[in-house]
């Protein structure tokens, strides 16, 4: 894992001091809200419905136990005893007091964390595969490049006042678990002539206007990547729309200008920047890579789960083994997903006690490493198969042993009307109703991603849910529009809207109808919902829902 040197530490310390001073001046009334707003936005401090919300960056979703303990401590001391992990692999605190913010930032700096650039129209935290460095299907570990992008984009003087926020995702695996095609820039490792470089996608996004990113270049070598990114950002900064905030993302620029012309402009800019100061030397990439070297795996770790017998005795544990383990590159090891989607709970929330317990699990069993996934779960990336049973027992104790990763109750949901000023409808209660309704049968349905947004801003990623649910407000009532067929992976697709909205109470019934079609018409138990939908088309689902 990347460790700050004195240079990074000085950078964060100075920035923290600077922002702390601004907060103090705001509290003292020396700054008006208008003067304070641009400052706080660059530093992750939002206003939500009830209070300030502080968003803390978890760079590419990677944490160690000390950091997780600190996050727990902040939840306990300055918030209401919990934190909320987000789809951007960050953590949010929903109830900090403004006057406490400087202290929180100081505490974060102690463990090399901060809230810089987690909001505002700048380059946000780079996200990646939660199994990076552990996954069996990896071409290259994306974290060193993610770290280099983090450094390059931190307080970039040219790109801190972009037309709109800018999100970059990167994956080094064959299967895309970072939804790179739904980011402003998506990077996918690509092998060409024995060299590894990056396929670059541009102009993806969700929100009001969901778009699948277009490929702008199929191979950019490591050494040119930053120059290429700078070229894209410069073209966007100069030409992205600023007249309408809903049309200001790069996806609209790409859509309205056409990918061919954008490519031409980016390539022209890149031609000037190439071989300049941004050229990444191999020895720097190597140096950063050493921070992400594989941990000292035991070569002789037993490659079978010792728990088959227990699984027979315990259906919940069997479900956990089936759903929450991910194949590791190292024989004898596995990655464990800790689901933050326990039935009846708020998706993505973890209490201070849970965070502390998870930090201890990471320290004892996973080489002190933890990940946050964009599906709002936590991951122990490097776990010995022989330890799975023990970890499971510990998770049971803290109420986080739900074996539902990738199942219908593993729902992404935005905060919705309960917390958010923009929302039209509630999201969290809908997620809870769905989880409760299908808890008994979810194994039968297999992999099924349900995503819920409380308004068209789509923070719950409903466009890419296998089943997506969008809350809208019509004439004073909350209605829910249902989409089917969305996909956030490399086969990226935006879901189809099936028809008119249903009320909140009717959502579980509507899903049941869709699932009945799937169960009746799937080819066999191995055909997942999404594949069946692609084969059958939307007609039978529409028919079932609206008759």
């Amino acid at each position, binding site marked *: 894992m990347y460790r700050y040197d004195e240079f990074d530490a000085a950078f964060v310390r100075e920035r923290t001091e600077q922002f702390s001073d601004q907060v103090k001046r705001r509290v003292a009334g020396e700054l008006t809200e208008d003067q304070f707003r641009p400052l706080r936005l660059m530093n992750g401090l939002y206003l939500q419905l009830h209070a300030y919300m502080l968003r803390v960056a978890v760079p590419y979703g990677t944490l160690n136990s000390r950091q997780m303990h600190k996050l727990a401590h902040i939840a306990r001391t300055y918030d209401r005893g919990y934190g909320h992990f987000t789809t951007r692999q960050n953590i949010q605190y929903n109830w900090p007091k403004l006057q406490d913010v400087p202290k929180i930032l100081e505490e974060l700096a102690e463990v090399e964390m901060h809230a810089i650039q987690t909001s505002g*129209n700048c380059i946000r935290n780079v996200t990646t595969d939660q199994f990076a460095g552990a996954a069996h299907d990896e071409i290259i570990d994306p974290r060193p490049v993610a770290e280099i992008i983090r450094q390059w984009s931190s307080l970039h*003087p040219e790109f801190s006042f972009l037309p709109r926020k800018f999100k970059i995702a990167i994956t080094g695996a064959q299967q895309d678990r970072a939804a790179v095609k739904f980011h402003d820039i998506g990077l996918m490792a690509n092998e060409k002539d024995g060299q590894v470089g990056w396929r670059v996608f541009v102009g993806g996004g969700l929100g009001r206007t969901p778009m699948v990113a277009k490929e702008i270049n199929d191979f950019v070598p490591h050494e040119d990547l930053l120059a290429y990114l700078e070229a894209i950002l410069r073209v966007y900064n100069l030409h992205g729309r600023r007249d309408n905030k809903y049309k200001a993302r790069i996806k609209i620029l790409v859509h309205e200008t056409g990918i061919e012309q954008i490519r031409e402009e980016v390539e022209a800019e890149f031609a000037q920047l190439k071989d300049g100061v941004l050229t990444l030397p191999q020895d720097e990439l190597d140096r950063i890579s050493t921070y992400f070297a594989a941990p000292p795996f035991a070569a002789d770790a037993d490659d079978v789960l010792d728990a088959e017998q227990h699984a027979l005795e315990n259906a919940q544990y069997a479900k956990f083994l089936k759903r929450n383990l991910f194949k590791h590159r190292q024989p004898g090891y596995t990655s464990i997903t800790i689901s933050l989607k326990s039935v009846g709970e708020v998706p993505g929330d973890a209490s201070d006690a849970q965070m502390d317990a998870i930090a201890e699990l990471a320290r004892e069993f996973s080489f002190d490493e933890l990940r946050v996934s964009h599906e709002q779960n936590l991951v122990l990336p490097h776990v010995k198969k022989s330890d799975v049973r023990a970890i499971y027992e510990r998770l049971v104790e803290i109420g986080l042993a739900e074996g539902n990763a990738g199942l219908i109750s593993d729902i992404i949901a935005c905060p919705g009307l309960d917390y958010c000023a923009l929302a039209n409808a509630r999201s969290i209660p809908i997620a809870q109703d769905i989880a409760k309704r299908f808890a008994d049968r979810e194994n039968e349905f297999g992999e099924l991603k349900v995503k819920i947004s409380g308004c068209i801003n789509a923070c719950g990623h409903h466009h890419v849910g296998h089943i997506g649910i969008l809350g809208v407000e019509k004439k004073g009532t909350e209605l829910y529009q249902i989409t089917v067929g969305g996909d956030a992976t490399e086969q990226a697709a935006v879901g189809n809207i099936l028809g008119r909205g249903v009320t909140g109470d009717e959502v579980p019934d509507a899903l049941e109808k869709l699932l009945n079609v799937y169960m009746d018409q799937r080819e066999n138990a191995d055909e997942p919902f999404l594949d069946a939908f692609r084969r059958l088309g939307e007609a039978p689902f529409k028919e079932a829902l609206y008759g």
Partner: protein
Amino acid sequence: MANANAAQAFVPKERLSDLQLVALNGMFDERDALSVLRFALEELTSHPIAMVSSFGADSSVLLHMVAQINPHQEVLFLETGKHFPETLEYVETMKQRLGLTNVRFLEPDTSDLARFDPKGDLWQTDPDSCCHIRKTEPLDAALKAYGGWVTGRKRFQTNDRGVLPHFELTSDERIKVNPLAYWDFEDVKAYRAEHDLPPHPLFNVGYLSIGCAPCTSMVKEGEDPRSGRWRGRDKTECGIHFDVSGKIAKPQAKGQSMKTLFKDGQFVEDQWRDLADDDALIDLDHVFMPFSLYIEHKDRLVGNNGALGLIVQPGDDVHEIGDDVHRFAAIAVEFPKFADGRGYSSARLLRERYGFDGELRARGDILTDQVQFLRRCGFDSLVVVDGPTRNALENDAIAGVSVFMQPTGRDIEVPAGTRPFLRRVK
């Protein structure tokens, strides 16, 4: 109503704290004026919020909104005794047109008038006192029963109102609500047209802001809309919008004589000016000219011997003049809003791509947090009016970091020893 429910959760109990006010402004940042007004009148505090109208040049917008929310809402009008007859006529017109049933006239205290303004000519000798007895006192008395009041003030009206928020706290913990804070002249015009609202009879003959007859004059084209109020006097507000401290929430630095150009560590006299409409394009010296005009006339300007300057607005493509940069002694890049960051890219292209080595000036909405970014992108002079930013510049206390994570083309950013390749120190 989902939004009403959402807002209810926030209703403060008694008086708003500073923090709540900040949160409130954040919540309504991007809401429309009607939502702000509805929330203020129906939900904001346990004490009622007063609606005050001047029935002036652009009062019709708020009055129309009030009528939509509740035509029986009490509307307070300061009957100073010095109004134009057209204004009083307009009060009646609007009452009928909008169905307003509860317009209450607030009149000056008769004993005050007898004591301080027996002849009714106090405005000539002491307009501040005149405003005080005819406006401030009657309004203060009427507002005792209220938790706050609604005003029609807008940011665009004068420099002083440039940062007006939706909600403000007065020093006696009451709240002032400005639903139209973010509206500009065009918005008002469009709203009036859309709802076919009758204009104040004097508006069409050139009164853009209307107060009492003796102290209101016509506004010339291009003037600040409120410049017709107390013309010729060092007075811009009547007093009802002052805080107890005697100051408006946030006075902007202003005045012709102020030096706004910051260069080489101090505020200095500006040797440059912008091209005027009636300037001929000959013998220009220390004159900034608009980008498009330069493109159009660049050949004619070849023989110009004086120092030529260029203005680059957001949207101007500096590639078009890239090969001509040596012809300019200074280039001014505009930042009409701090959030519009196009000028940073323009600056880097001018400096790094095209090798411009003259004065590169940033103008517009320059705030302290941008200064370091601007400098790193190649600016070496700044035109700054924002008070706190000026103070910070003068005291060399600009917010910033001393280590940089990425290179730009600035000389000050040299690789430091064995630092990793992207990093620079100041």
